[in-house]
């Protein structure tokens, strides 16, 4: 080839034997969703193995947490999975509440559930649009962003921010909901299932889409469990595990909803699982806005948050999987140790197993189906 052994930002190939090539995708590559670098060892056309090289977006979020007071750190967690900031906030606030032994009042829990489910839908919509774009369908992106926009408008009206919301406070909510909040959620839910049908019309039975995703990136239930993979990927492989059901938090124990699971654990199943999850989220939303209780929105946690010494691990079902916060308190206003268990980071481990034996074009689809956010992988 024209320039072997030349390394560029985008791609780098080295001819090893006549057959084995190392292809470097990223960190500046349009479909690695940020600054992921994947080193692929190719056996001819097929991927023999892969290696993820991460850390390009490392900001030391966990270390920052140890140098900030508990409330001060809350906005930082929004910057980990920046497309699902509300879920991050929920996980952190509940973890600190658990450490304090406090519990948010019912109204706060209900509002938290509504916002988190909206966030789940928004995150899945973003995933669907970009995943379809990776596979070459440009139109779904605009459809999904149309709906995501509605959700972001609700966030903006609620807390003034669209992306990095900092929606919750330790002990409950900072703000009371605005007038017409429930109605807006209701209006959103009213035609959202029709919108999902619209996406399905474009993709689900589209022969090219099926061919591109069916049996691509298969991961079996055993492997998924062994690797600690969570979220839609685990459920796509047929494991019915959802923390909202298994260890209910916020107000999830109050609502009826189903956990969709796949059978084959391939990209197509994960696609269907996520679509169904959006429908279930809509179901939760409809129940929640009907039953939202009145009352205070903030528990009495005091002005200065100073948890007793001890440690806590609290996890929630974020859109991408299990999001856990492990906090060690030494009795001061700052955590002694703070550790985030980000779903993307753990799920990304499965990439190597998923891409083996597939073609380079499939790697793009598989990275898309894992639904990683590099802010969360690198922290």
């Amino acid at each position, binding site marked *: 080839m024209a320039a072997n052994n030349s390394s560029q930002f*985008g791609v780098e190939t080295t001819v090893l034997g006549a057959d084995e090539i190392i292809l470097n995708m990223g960190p500046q590559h349009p479909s690695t969703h940020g600054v992921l670098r994947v080193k692929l060892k190719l056996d001819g056309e097929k991927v023999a193995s892969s290696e993820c090289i991460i850390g390009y977006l490392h900001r030391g979020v966990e270390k920052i947490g140890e140098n900030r007071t508990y409330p001060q750190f809350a906005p930082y967690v929004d910057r980990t999975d920046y497309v699902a900031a509300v879920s991050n906030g929920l996980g952190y606030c509940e973890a600190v509440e658990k450490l304090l032994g406090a519990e948010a009042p019912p109204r706060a829990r209900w509002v938290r559930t509504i916002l988190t489910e909206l966030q789940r839908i928004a995150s899945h919509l973003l995933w669907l649009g970009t995943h379809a774009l990776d596979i*070459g369908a440009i139109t779904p992106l605009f459809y999904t962003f149309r709906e995501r926009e509605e959700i972001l408008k609700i966030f903006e009206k609620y807390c003034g921010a669209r992306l990095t919301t900092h929606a919750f406070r330790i002990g409950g909510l900072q703000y009371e909901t605005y007038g017409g909040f429930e109605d807006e959620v209701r209006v959103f839910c009213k035609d959202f299932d029709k919108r999902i049908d619209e996406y399905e019309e474009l993709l689900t039975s589209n022969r090219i889409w099926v061919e*591109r995703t069916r049996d691509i990136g298969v991961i079996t239930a055993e492997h998924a469990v062994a690797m600690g993979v969570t979220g839609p990927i685990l459920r796509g492989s047929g494991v019915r595990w959802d923390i909202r059901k298994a260890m209910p938090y916020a107000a999830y124990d109050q609502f009826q909803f189903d956990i969709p699971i796949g059978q084959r654990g391939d990209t197509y199943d994960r696609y269907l699982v996520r679509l169904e999850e959006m429908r279930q989220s809509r179901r939760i939303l409809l129940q929640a806005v009907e039953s939202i209780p009145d009352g205070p929105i903030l528990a009495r946690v005091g002005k200065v948050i100073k948890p007793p010494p001890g440690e806590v691990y609290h996890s929630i079902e974020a859109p991408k999987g299990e999001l856990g916060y492990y906090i060690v308190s030494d009795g001061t206003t700052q955590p002694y140790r703070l550790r985030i268990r980000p779903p993307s980071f753990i799920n990304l481990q499965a990439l190597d197993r998923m891409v083996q034996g597939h073609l380079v074009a499939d790697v793009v689809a598989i990275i898309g189906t894992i639904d990683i956010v590099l802010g969360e992988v690198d922290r």
Partner: protein
Amino acid sequence: MTNPFDILAPYLPDVLEPFILPLLQIGVVFLGLSLIVAYIVYAERKILAHIQVRLGPMRVGPHGLLQPIADGLKLLLKEDIIPRGADSFIFWLAPVISVMAAFTGFALIPFADNFIVTDVNVGLLFVIGISSLGIYGIILGGWSSNSHYPLLGALRSAAQLVSYEVALGFAIVSALLLSGTLSMSGIVKAQITHGVWFVFVQPVAFFILFVAAIAETNRNPFDLPEAESELVAGFHTEYSGFRFSLYFLGEYAAMILVSSIAVTLFLGGWTRPFQSVGWLDFLKYAPVALFAFCTYWCVAHERKMPRAPEWRWQRLMLLGLGGGAAVLALVFVAVPPVVDAVQGVFWFLVKVCAFLYGFIWFRGTFPRYRFDQLMRLGWHYMIPVAIANTIFCGVGLVLWRSLGWSFAGSLWIGTLLTLLVALLLSGQTEAPEPTVTRRGS
């Protein structure tokens, strides 16, 4: 109908006549095409935008009508970058080949009866041959960039083009068998003689030609050479400015060229729909209706525009366009020979535009094939079906010529046999299965 350029013939010196008339035609075709290409890009952006619930270009001129000009100027004025280590001669040559291959083909396309730059008796072979030269623009551009993405894109593209050219060739053969000539205008005339467009007796060949045409022009769902999620922009990743615009021009001109070939071979070229049906003669006023609609559209949109002074130019422009269209419509009504003169070109362009709309529609709808899937589709499905179609088309022709069966009937027997083969072939590939994910409890 006569060649509109022949009007000039008596005024020219005899020696120059054989040079000047073709040159004039070439000039008209070239300029017209460049304009059409510019506005095809605009149409693509607008149509895609409307498919994707957005507006598309709206700022430059009323409804973004001047956007192509702005884009062209921008591309012309951009810095011209040649990557280090690139082979500068080939880097310069490649886009030129791309454009030349696409534009030269038009010399053999009959836009109307007698409106053809040169009517060679092997015209069809020449068009196919020359348009296949476009592949050099792609391979050489990808290779000379001295970069990996362009190289991979170029190799993919070359493999794809070579594969689908086979299917394209077989699809063309059936039109050839029906008309018994390789001359482009002869093929249209054969369709007039038979009184039926070949698409109605050879639908499978038309379909294969259509799919192969999409693949040949690297359009979605076969746009792998430019798969942005995998190969950035494919073979023209390193190109910018004027050279990039040349590629752009060549790509869209190639789209129009393959559409023109398909229209000529299967959709009756310059003939209006149902030319043999007398009472549909009023259709010859379709250009009038089109321009009248343009006038209506312009006026209606001018009404909707804000009255603020900064909108004055936009409003004036729209009104001007509407007025121009109205004048044209009036001329068509008032002077019947003019309507007759534009008939051929009008219907030809209408059909080409319908084709191009299909191209754009697909782009807004389909995901992209993977490379091996694309190759499998080409070699395992398209080419066998195309070969079967050619054979059964021949069988149909024998039935017609030797046994005296009806033309359409015998060809439809061939088509049905082809469809049978296609069905057998598709039985081998896996049909999309029902969804397996069901809600649990």
